[in-house]
Structures are given as C-alpha cells and as structure tokens.
C-alpha cells in the first residue's frame, strides 16, 4: 500500500487537522469530526448538513461554506458517521429555520441519519427533513436491493440546495428542490483499478491488467460487469447510454454534465472523457448548459471516472450559478 499517511487509524483525524489548517474560514470540531462554517448558525437560514464515510474527498467537507453546506460529518474511511455526529451538526447549524440532512443511499448512512433526526427532534425540537440521493443507475432499483447508491448527484444537489437555503427559502422549499435534483440526476462509474482502504492495506478487489469494472460503487462495490479495458470513447458510451435511457433524457433537454475523477485519475484523462461525453450528448440533441470536470467525489486512490447528468430548468441553473465559496467549489465571490 503506497499512501502519504501515518498510522491508518489516524488518517481521518489528521486529514481534518489539515483541512482546518488550510482553510481558516472553516471550523472543525475534532471530537465530533464535524467541519462547519464559521458563521453558522445563520438566523432564519435553513441549515444543510451532510456526511458519510471518509475517503471521498472533497465530498463532503470540501463543500462546506457559503452557498453550499453548513456542516459535514466525517465517518471512518468508508463507514457512515454515527448519529451523535449528525445530531451535534444539526444543533450547530440550526438557525431556527430547520435543518436539511443530505444522505447518500447506503443502508448504514440512511439508518444513522435517521437516528440522528429522531434524536434531534426529541432533544431540540428542531425541524429536520432528509433527502436521500440514489442516482447510481448501475444498481437495479427494486424491492430486491437496498436501492440505488447515492453518488455524483450528491455534489450537484449540495450546491443547488445550498444556494436555495442561502437565498432564504424555507425548509420545505429547500427539501423540495433537493428532491427535484435527485429525481432528475443519474450517474454511473467505471473503475480501472481498485481502491485500497488504509486499514485493510490491500486492494479491495482484484482487477486484471486489461480489465475494468463497469458500474462500480464509490466504496469499491462491484459493478454491473467486468469488461476488457476499452478506449475512452467506448467507456463514455457504456456509462452515458444507461444514464440517458434511465431517466430518460431526451433531445432538447438541458443538463449539467459532470465528469468526475475517482481519486487516482489525472485531469487530462477527465478532459478526454468529457470530450467523448460531450460528443454523445450533442449527437442526442441534449444541450450541456453547464459542466463540471474534476475529482469531486472520490474513492480513495481508485483510478476511474463517473459521469453524472442532471436535467435542469432555469431555476436549477440559476441556483447552480449562484455564488459559492467552499474549498472545492467556488465562484461568484
């Protein structure tokens, strides 16, 4: 295992120290492993928190700041945080207008957030709503599974819901916008290599030198198929087609196109992928209104990429364009 770390058990705590030192405008509660805005709670503003296992940086801590999250809870690597963390974060960001929990759809995350919401309403009376993202089309969404996993849409949702909250909309409105984003977004990813969990010390799965895992999850969950490594053009099509059919997206739709790196893939490859995605969309008459290219929801050191398409109208677009000031996304301010 080749990583720039000390003891595998200290990775999360030390990364939080690094984030705190690098971003003086954010606060860190090390006991509860919470990254939060210095100016939270803002009276009358809906608070938005998220969280999840660590190893997906910049998600979620890198999205804390004006126009996005008020706080993020960091779990152990690939392990959902515990309700105490979300409860503490909820209290921290509650400015009287209620709190939205943004939860990626994994059994553990959903249950821990659920418990924290129960505790919050019992302990504080704060109104808490939750929105669960489940955009990964690689997983069959049926009563026979835990449902789709929450992946790339989470990033776009945190930005858009964050803007709505910043503009003063109320909790129901912010939650409604968040649900709209989740309903209109779809993702799928591919791994060229496995990630290596620090505590495990070896790759989570074995992948041959000429293989790729199509439909992989951000914790190294198995995908739809193991296939021979293919050119970017083919990979883009293997990812985009299932996304397009699932919603479905149709000619004339405007989208935010998001090409994400999984942690071990450099930007030059993401731009090569973006070019392929863009060509496919152009061929279908889908209009790319905005784009995002970079590593925003990662799986430790996994080489690979995921693609997210979000169907947008003018309202979602204007929320996307609204100012944001976080370590990982910043514009307009």
């Amino acid at each position: 295992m080749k990583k720039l770390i000390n003891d595998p058990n200290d990775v999360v705590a030390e990364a939080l120290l690094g984030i705190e030192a690098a971003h003086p405008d954010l606060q860190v509660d090390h006991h509860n492993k919470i990254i939060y805005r210095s100016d939270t709670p803002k009276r009358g503003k809906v608070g938005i928190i998220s969280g999840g296992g660590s190893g997906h940086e910049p998600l979620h801590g890198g999205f804390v700041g004006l126009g996005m999250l008020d706080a993020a809870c960091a779990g152990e690597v690939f392990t959902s945080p515990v309700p105490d963390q979300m409860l503490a974060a909820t209290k921290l960001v509650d400015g009287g207008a209620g709190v939205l929990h943004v939860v990626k759809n994994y059994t553990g995350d959903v249950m821990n957030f659920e418990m924290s919401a129960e505790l919050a309403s019992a302990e504080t009376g704060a109104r808490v709503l939750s929105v669960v993202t489940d955009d990964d089309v690689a997983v069959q969404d049926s009563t026979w599974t835990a449902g789709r996993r929450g992946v790339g849409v989470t990033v776009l949702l945190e930005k858009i819901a964050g803007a709505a909250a910043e503009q003063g909309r109320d909790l129901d409105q912010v939650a409604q916008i968040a649900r709209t984003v989740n309903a209109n977004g779809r993702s799928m990813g591919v791994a060229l290599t496995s990630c290596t969990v620090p505590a495990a010390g070896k790759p989570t799965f074995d992948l041959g030198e000429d293989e790729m895992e199509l439909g992989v999850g951000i914790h190294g969950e198995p995908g739809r198929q193991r296939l021979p490594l293919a050119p970017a053009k083919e990979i883009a099509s293997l990812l985009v087609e299932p996304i397009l059919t699932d919603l479905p997206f149709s000619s004339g739709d405007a989208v935010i196109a998001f090409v994400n790196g999984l942690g071990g893939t450099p930007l030059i490859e993401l731009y090569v992928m973006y070019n392929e995605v863009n060509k496919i969309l152009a061929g279908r008459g889908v209009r790319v209104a905005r784009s995002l290219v970079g590593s925003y929801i990662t799986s430790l050191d996994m080489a690979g990429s995921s693609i997210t398409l979000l169907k947008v109208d003018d309202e979602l677009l204007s929320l996307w364009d609204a100012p944001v000031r976080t370590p990982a996304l910043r514009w307009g301010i």
Partner: protein
Amino acid sequence: MDENVTTAVLEEWVRTFATLIEQNRDYLTELDAAIGDADHGSNMDRGMKAAVAALDDAALTTAGALFTKVGMTLVSTVGGASGPLFGTFFLRMGASFGDSDTASPRDFAAALRAGLGGVVARGKAEPGDKTMYDALAPAVDALDLALEAQSQLATGLKAARDAAATGRDATTPMLARKGRASYLGERSVGHQDPGATTVALLLEAATESSF
C-alpha cells in the same frame, strides 16, 4: 424457571459477547469482505470494546440501564449498518426492561423479542433477505417456545443458540436483498452473512454465561 436473572449475569453476557467478537474479529471482517466492505469485524469490535469500557466506568444496577448503555454506546461508536441495528437491538431490550428492578426469564425473552422488533423497525429486513434477522428471529422464537414448554432459561438459551447457528448457516444459499451485499445480486449466493454470524456469537455468549 421463575428465578430472576441478575444484572450481573446480564453484564457477564455482554462482556462474553465482546470477547467472542474480539476473537472472531478478523473472521467477521473476512465474511464481510466477500459480500460487503470488509469492516463488520472491526465495526463490532470497536463498538463492543467501547461498551465494555462504558460498563467498567459505570456501575449499572438494572437490566434496563445496562442494555440502554450498551445500545447507546454501539450507536455512538460503530456507524455503518451494524451500529444502528445492534444499537437499536440493545436499546429496545433496555426499554423493554424499563426501570424494573427484577428480570424474570420471561422478561428476558420479551426483551429479546423487543430487540428483534427494533432491528426490523430500523432495517426493514424480511425473512430470507440474508441479514442478521435470519439468525435472530429463529433464536427469539426458540427461546419463547422453550419457556412456554416450561424449560429453564439456560436450556432455552441453548435452544436459541442452536436456532441462531442454524439460521446463520441458512443465510449462505440466500440471495441478499438488504444492505451492501444486495448490490452483488446473484453473486451474494454461497456466502455466509456476517451480521447473522455475529448474532450466533451473541447467543453463544449467552450459553457461556451463568444464566
């Protein structure tokens, strides 16, 4: 079968469970590596070590306080799916005992069933979903049956242990429909569920304690 269970014995059970988890930590993680994310052993071990530490710190005199403490500690330290599930299990056991000073075998069986109810309420698992439920539900049934048949609690717990072990083994051919293993679809078949394995250890711990 009317002798009350002392809080000391209940605490012995929890500590024995913690020891078994520690001993089976890597085994549980290996099981989770095959169909999950290779953390079930370390999750449970982290939680049970914290629970034992909490018991070391506090002298709890009632069954209700004991299990509430264990449940809260698990919820606060485990995370993932097993934190809320095993945490809720113990919390509901604690709530079932309430602040009563005494705990009869029937109270114990009722608490166990309440714990099972908590697991279902939290995780919505159904029989055959290949989860901890598939070991826990048969164990709870077996204990009830034994007590109805006027067996001693210790005897009933042996029946429950055997039922849990059978339930655990029965998860192997199942296709997972809940939790992380469900993403594997057909590929989950042929692997024993880690959570069900932990439940079997919990009942084994009971038979090794002085009930």
